[in-house]
């Protein structure tokens, strides 16, 4: 249970930023 919580929390911390980086790359590529 504890590992699941830590794993989930880690994803919540890291993934939005990673996804955001990808989305920003996509937006920039579309603009170019």
């Amino acid at each position, binding site marked *: 249970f504890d590992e699941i919580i830590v794993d989930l929390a880690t994803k919540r911390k890291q993934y939005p930023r990673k996804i955001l980086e990808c989305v920003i790359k996509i937006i920039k590529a579309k*603009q170019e």
Partner: protein
Amino acid sequence: TISRLKLLDTTVDTFLQKLIAAGSYQRFTDCYKCFYQLQPEMTQRIYDKFMTQLQTSVREEISDIKAEGNLEAVLNALDTIAEEGKDRKELAWRPSGKPEEDLRSTLMPYFLQQRDALQRCVRKQEAENRQLAGAVLAGRRQVEELQLQGQAQWQAWQALHRGQKELVAVLRE
């Protein structure tokens, strides 16, 4: 406001003080009565050593945990974050458990920026095209004007040509 790190140290100190107070020398000699009666000085020394060792071990453990979890920096960072947000009274947002929903708010500002940038591009291009369209219309008028001039000149020369034919006819007669 006391820093979280200070609070942690104070809490552990209090825990230790109370634990030691609970395990008083009186209590210790009560439990080890037979040995105490035989060796009172030794009992005192063993008790003192016991308490010192227990405190040392506990404090070392806390230091290890602080080092492992980088607690010093992390707790100070949390103090800063809490300080910055202290004026906020209402409950803050918490993950909803639906990642796509939570992610929407993260991404929206960037998509809004993209839309605004696109709107600026479109407006700029529309304005440029209005200018170009003006230039094209002026160019068309210019072409039309030149065509009319050319037409007029061509007709004049046609008239001349007829005049020349007429002259030739007259001369030939």
